[in-house]
């Protein structure tokens, strides 16, 4: 076995690999850029080598720098993680030449699976179902129309070198095929410098389901079941699970066997993933093969009990697989949620900055419940603009899919992240979405269910009552403590009442609390009675309550006269008032948030570098209004529409917070 391996990556995946290496008694070497000097993977590794400035193209993907680090530390093998150099055949070649093991597939396999057209050809020859389509190059629009008719509409017109939705068009008839061909070709030429186009059947009701394969250098290849990754936003996976709620055993077996056939056809070794698109009738078609460890590999590990990183290291060391296809079972259900530093309320805008608070739910494993969190960050750490905005992969496992989902809901509620925008509320919303819960989803789930973006969550009556009951009980604890202040007038102390009115999400509930040493029984006007137990004390930012025996986990913040409660994707202002206070509060005039459509708000905390316009000036749509510097990046803010500047509230040199008004328009 290797004595020392280098991990040519950063973030959670570097930490993930280090964990397994440690378990196997292998020393680890981390590499880091200037931005990652204090990163978790550097801390965790036995050795760390600095490889340059923050941008990845000056550090993490510079082959020479990684090769230097290997030389310097004497690492015998390299795990590339995912992204960066993981599917770079030149890197694998360089390692071969230096006599260092690449913990991944052979160069040939990387190369042949790296090109969409080549890989599809090889797959077809290996007997893998492929999407009906024309593999050759298409000369002109008329040929495109002819081919489209042969395949049958709808068809997808794609750039050969494409990815991420660029150079991709769907056509339902001849006219659209003609037009789509031309625009795809232009876009492909501009984006990739390669205008080769191909046409294939457009799959309806598509689901993204992929097969995990594992092969050794001795001719053994097995598949470790599938993962369903249909919940995606702009081709970025958000939620994955294993197994898929959609596959039957026959389809699974067929997909698995075809995947192994493909792996064998290219002499594959190590862990790899064959991605398929599956239609509403369970027809599956090969999409591509990823010749690396996938981000979402933990769900496979959770249902199979196989440590994929360990297997990769053993295969790279020349060992034969110690498990056979018969050993691979499906045990329970696993779900992964990707926590991104993206603000769901602002169109998933990436958010960077200091993690003032970062407390993931405790990792945990029992016979009916597993919580696993793969992360590369820590409280007090920095989310930088240079890398992927994913900060953690939260996985839960349960004996059934519904149990796994329920565990996930509670784990998300208990995940504390402050200081940056993040998608936790959105993930909670998806976990409660009836379509997701029923397993009835396609890759269009997010686009179809959240067409206007994410607007937050409204809770139903029973969820509100559970939160209201908890807040009433929590408020009572806080109020009683207030009465225990020094300097009281003896014999004239304040008595805390039992009747309260809890207001949240536009609803008010009058409740009566009966407290006893074990907890509180909260009775509502409609006769509902809720038992609240928990050890929350003032200042706790996380309340883990038991409501009628079932768990309720809430993030608790301070607001005047109550709490800010975040739970199940909702973000609530909860006021707890005495009946008299509540009565008088009704006279208060609801203040509508100011109309910000005629204001320019600062989108991020930053420094005003320049204001380009003056009061009274007419501005056109798209005209630069001012420049805000944040994290050393200059962001030019532009007019959203035509207008006249009526007021300017900031000048060059001012530091502004998010949503500060920079200027107003008439």
């Amino acid at each position, binding site marked *: 076995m290797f004595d020392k391996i280098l991990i040519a990556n950063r973030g959670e995946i570097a930490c993930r690999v280090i964990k397994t290496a440690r378990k196997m008694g292998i020393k680890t070497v981390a590499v880091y850029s200037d931005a990652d000097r204090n990163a978790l993977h550097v801390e965790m590794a036995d050795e760390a080598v600095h490889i340059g400035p923050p941008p990845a193209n000056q550090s993490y993907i510079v082959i020479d720098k990684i090769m230097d680090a290997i030389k310097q530390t004497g690492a015998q093998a390299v795990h590339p993680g995912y992204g960066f150099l993981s599917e770079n055949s030149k890197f694998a070649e360089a390692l071969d030449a230096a006599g260092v093991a690449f913990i991944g597939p052979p160069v040939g396999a990387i190369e042949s699976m790296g090109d969409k057209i080549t890989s599809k050809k090889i797959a077809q020859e290996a007997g893998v179902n492929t999407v009906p389509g024309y593999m050759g190059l298409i000369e002109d629009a008329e040929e495109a129309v002819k081919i489209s008719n042969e395949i049958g509409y709808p068809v997808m017109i794609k750039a050969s070198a494409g990815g991420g939705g660029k150079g991709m068009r769907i056509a339902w008839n001849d006219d659209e095929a003609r037009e789509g061909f031309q625009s795809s070709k232009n876009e492909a030429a501009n984006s990739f410098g390669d205008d080769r186009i191909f046409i294939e059947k457009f799959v309806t009701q598509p689901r993204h389901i992929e097969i995990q394969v594992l092969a050794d250098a001795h001719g053994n290849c097995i598949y470790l079941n599938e993962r369903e990754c249909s919940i995606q936003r702009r081709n970025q996976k958000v939620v994955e699970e294993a197994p898929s709620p959609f596959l039957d055993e026959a389809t699974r077996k067929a997909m698995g066997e075809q995947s192994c056939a493909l792996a064998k056809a290219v002499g594959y070794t190590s862990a790899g993933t064959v991605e398929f698109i599956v239609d509403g009738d369970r027809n599956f078609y090969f999409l591509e093969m990823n010749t690396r460890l996938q981000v979402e590999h933990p769900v496979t590990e959770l249902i199979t009990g196989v440590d994929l990183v360990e297997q990769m290291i053993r295969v790279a060391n020349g060992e034969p697989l110690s498990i056979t296809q018969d050993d691979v079972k499906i045990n329970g259900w696993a779900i992964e949620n990707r926590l991104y530093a993206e603000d769901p309320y602002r169109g998933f805008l990436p958010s960077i900055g200091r993690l003032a608070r970062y407390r993931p739910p405790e990792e945990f494993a029992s016979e009916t419940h597993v919580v696993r969190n793969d992360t590369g960050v820590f409280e007090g750490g920095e989310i930088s603009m240079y890398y992927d905005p994913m900060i953690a992969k939260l996985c839960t496992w349960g004996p059934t899919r519904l149990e796994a989902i329920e565990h996930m809901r509670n784990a998300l509620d208990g995940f504390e992240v402050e200081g940056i925008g993040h998608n936790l509320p959105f993930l909670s919303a998806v976990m409660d979405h009836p379509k997701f819960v029923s397993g009835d989803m396609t890759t269009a789930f997010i686009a179809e269910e959240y067409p206007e973006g994410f607007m937050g969550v409204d809770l139903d009556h029973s969820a509100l009552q559970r939160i209201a009951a908890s807040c009433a009980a929590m408020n009572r604890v806080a109020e009683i403590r207030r009465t225990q202040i020094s300097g009281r007038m003896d014999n004239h102390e*304040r008595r805390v009442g039992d009747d309260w009115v809890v207001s949240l999400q536009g609803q008010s509930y009058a409740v009566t609390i009966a407290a006893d040493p074990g907890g509180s029984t909260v009775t509502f006007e409609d006769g509902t009675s809720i038992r609240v137990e928990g050890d929350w004390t*003032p200042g706790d930012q996380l309340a883990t309550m038991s409501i009628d025996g079932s768990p309720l986990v809430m993030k608790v913040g301070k607001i005047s006269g109550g709490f800010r409660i975040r739970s199940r994707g909702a973000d609530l202002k909860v006021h707890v008032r005495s009946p008299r206070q509540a009565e008088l509060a009704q006279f208060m005039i609801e203040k509508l948030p100011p109309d910000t459509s005629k204001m320019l708000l600062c989108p991020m905390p930053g420094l005003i570098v320049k204001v380009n316009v003056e009061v009274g000036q007419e501005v056109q749509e798209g005209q630069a209004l001012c420049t805000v510097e944040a994290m050393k990046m200059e962001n030019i803010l532009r007019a959203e529409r035509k207008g006249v500047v009526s007021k300017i509230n900031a000048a060059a040199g001012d530091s502004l917070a998010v949503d500060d008004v920079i200027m107003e328009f008439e």
Partner: protein
Amino acid sequence: MKDILQELETRRANARLGGGQKRIDAQHAKGKLTARERIELLLDDGSFEEFDMFVAHRCTDFGMEKQRPAGDGVVTGWGTINGRMVYVFSQDFTVFGGSLSETHAQKICKIMDMAIQNGAPVIGINDSGGARIQEGVASLAGYAEVFQRNIMASGVVPQISVIMGPCAGGAVYSPAMTDFIFMVKDSSYMFVTGPDVVKTVTNEVITAEELGGASTHTKKSSVADGAFENDVEALAEVRRLVDFLPLNNREKAPVRPFFDEPGRIETSLDTLVPDNANTPYDMKELILKLADEGDFYEIQEDFAKNIITGFIRLEGQTVGVVANQPMVLAGCLDIDSSRKAARFVRFCDAFEIPILTLVDVPGFLPGTSQEYGGVIKHGAKLLFAYGEATVPKVTVITRKAYGGAYDVMSSKHLRGDFNYAWPTAEIAVMGAKGATEIIHRADLGDAEKIAQHTQDYEDRFANPFVAAERGFIDEVIQPRSTRRRVSRAFASLRNKKLQNPWKKHDNIPL
């Protein structure tokens, strides 16, 4: 006999109606509560004891004798906030627009006198159109009587003003002399002369809100210490503030049970100060992580944001915090921030509230606007306030402590009790670049030499150890253990006794 008792109830009911149901409804329609409703929300349930419910004015001019409502436009008395005694007056806008008459003033003076004598705070709820014009000079005399008591009470009992409606003309000077002024957004304003007079005299056209609304006074003039969304929130927050304050100047700051480990370690503070000395960070994060339960009552949050002032608790006891805010103007001291902090420090000292100072200050803000504005004298206020303060003083330097600003920010030399520094602290006369350019002026043409000198200077002075060698820093502490160290420091100072020499009063540079 029964009729006699009933007569009292009838009179009481009548007095409680103030200016009548129609005016009460009008007050409610504006989103405002009545004088009595406000007192109800301010005080513990059922704790209010009223004085002078039946006082009526004695004016006989302009037909005033025909209208003599009981109470005369102000409700006064005492009650408790979480069981602690406070005195309160609440002006009743439904009675003659809350205008101040001679008798109205006498009612206020009565409870102020009692507050001073019995050592309890005074909370004034202001909602008044101004002087009762019909009474002429008698009304003005009434104002002055109140002013005189504000002055006498200052530094003896905490005085809090809540502006919940108009407060104009001479009336503003009573709140102006109290310790804290809070306003309600959109329904209160304060000014010496109103929009009409302003227009006549200066031709400026301006609304009452722009001239003296909550936004103006919390952001621009710094007259108000805070603003709240509505009456209910404002009164709840005043209750919260009172829980931080001692009842009078002979008492220690209050203590209450707390649910937070004094030795709590915050590893994330180790990375609070960024690697780059010019990158800002949010000092509020440090305050929130130091405080018991993350509870911080900020004073003047929207004014001079380059310095932060407010109250926290450590081990359940109130501590005043003054902290430079690197996020704004790099945390420098200037006229506004010096004034803001100086007043806060003096309040804490007057009422025996220990002071925690968190320092990251690059110096005083340069420029003509500062010098012409008298930054010398305003800066001196903060220096003076710290130097005269005899309460426990604990200081933590997180990063920069440069030049005169180092001295000002509760340094050892101003009788600081505990002066801590983080390892990231840089205590020096100025930054390395500036210092090098002066010390090595001869080498200015030689960039390489200057770079070397700068590096040498940084190595020698950009740390807390030069100061620690001299004992100006008592101890260099780990950021993560700041809460534990600061809590223990204040615990050790609970019996601190320090007296300034006898004087009639000092002569702080006003």
